[in-house]
């Protein structure tokens, strides 16, 4: 392999990006950690991170985790059967049908959330239709349910895509072999299909859980100003209260959750080694 004259030449070509990544990825993260562990006088402190244990903040964190877990679960329950149906179709036009299900992903995220504001409002579209048929109206706007609905609607494609890819990659011969050896439908599913699709499920869970846990736009738009998620609190610290230290401290708490998620995935990755 003689693409480069020496390691130094390769290093030279890679160096702009190495510098870039250092300045714009590593340094900013270090700054968040620095601000998170110092007070406004620059002294070391745990107070910013520990603020998460204060009632209002802790409540927001628990609520965020709750809503993110529910949304992730709903997305999974909706996506898995869908993935199986799509993977089972094995048609040439398959690609088009799959595209249909992930197309909304390309539509602006705020507009997708906005649609649900319009639909769910007190005098919104859904209630108007319900009233027309003399049915009881619903009032879920500005409630946690509306936020979950918004999360599911926004992040569903992120669950569908990896699950479908994992299921689609399963070699049909393996399933046939299980059948030949006497496994029934349930056994085949539990012992062949489900374990083989696990990497897809895990990557879907990450892709839904992390944005759902950290969102502030969905809760602002669908939760009114009453329901604060941890993302809203961090956003306020930076854009309204200008307390960068506290905001960074709370971000460190968020990063701990992301780290846990990463480790769990890494463990399964090294075991399965099938992802990507």
């Amino acid at each position, binding site marked *: 392999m003689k693409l480069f004259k020496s390691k130094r030449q390769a290093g030279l070509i890679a160096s702009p990006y190495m510098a870039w*990544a250092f300045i714009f990825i590593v340094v*900013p993260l270090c700054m968040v950690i620095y601000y998170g562990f110092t007070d406004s006088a620059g002294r070391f402190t745990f107070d910013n991170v520990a603020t998460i244990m204060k009632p209002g903040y802790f409540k927001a964190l628990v609520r965020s985790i709750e809503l993110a877990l529910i949304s992730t679960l709903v997305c999974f329950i909706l996506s898995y059967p869908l993935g199986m149906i799509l993977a089972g179709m094995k048609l040439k036009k398959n690609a088009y049908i799959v595209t249909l299900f992930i197309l*909304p992903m390309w*539509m602006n995220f705020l507009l997708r959330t906005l649609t649900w504001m*319009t639909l769910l409002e007190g005098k919104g*579209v859904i209630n108007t239709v319900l009233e027309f048929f003399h049915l009881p109206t619903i009032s879920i706007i500005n409630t946690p349910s509306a936020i979950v609905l918004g999360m599911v609607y926004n992040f569903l494609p992120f669950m569908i895509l990896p699950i479908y890819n994992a299921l689609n990659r399963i070699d049909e011969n393996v399933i046939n072999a299980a059948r030949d050896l006497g496994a029934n439908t349930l056994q085949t599913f539990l012992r062949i299909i489900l374990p083989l699709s696990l990497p897809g499920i895990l990557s879907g869970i990450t892709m839904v859980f992390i944005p759902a846990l950290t969102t*502030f736009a969905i809760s602002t738009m669908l939760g009114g100003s009453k329901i604060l998620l941890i993302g809203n609190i961090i956003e306020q610290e930076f854009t309204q209260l200008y307390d960068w230290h506290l905001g960074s401290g709370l971000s460190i708490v968020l990063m701990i959750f992301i780290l846990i998620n990463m480790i769990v995935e890494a463990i399964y990755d090294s075991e399965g080694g099938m992802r990507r």
Partner: protein
Amino acid sequence: MKKVLTRIYLIIILIFMYAPIFTLIVLSFNSSKSRARWGGFTLGWYINLLSDEAVASALINTLTIAVLATIFSTIIGTFTCIAMIGLSPKLRSVIMGITNIPMINADIVTGISLMLLFRFLHLSSGFSTILLAHITFNIPFVMLSVMPRVKNLNFYVYEAALDLGANPAYAFTKTILPDIIPGIVSGALMAFTMSLDDFIITYFTKGSGFETLSTLIYNEVKRGIQPEIYALSAIIFVVVLALLLIVYRAPQAKSKEK
């Protein structure tokens, strides 16, 4: 029976996904400002939208940033991927590890971390800071899509070209580039769409007075939804749909040629 059930399931999910979007499109033609009443057909909101300078400048900002960020990130990402072959495995895994950070990290953390950096460097927030931020989160997408192509390269062809008298640049463009072009194109497309769609990172790095479409919509929504926004949604949806159809058709048409 099973077939009917799966069809019904597919249709229910599709309705869930598309009914809200179509409702918006219908409302964009509604002459009544109220969402609850149909006041007759109008194109007025579209006309208002087109004469709205804030929307026009936000659109131009969004597109300029997306195009520039795509170009820069594609160039940097591609060259880095190629250079990776010549690096030691240890350095390679360090680079890939750092590259993965923006992909795994929450957007809000990436956004505030960049905001802290820009404030520290006393860069005035606006076009340039957004562009720097977008290039940063786009490079990983480009690299993830180019890297598998680079790994599968066959360097014997490159060496053969050199042996047969081609100079390195010529050999590179004739043997290596064609193999990685599909990765570069899909990486660039990915970067472009990510850039267009981004809200959170832009929100934290934009400063006041500079808007992209996403931040403009967010501000508008906070003030109360105007029907012009529905018209904007409808236009964006149709454009996205058209772009996707073109993108999905293009590779198929090419493979048919072969």
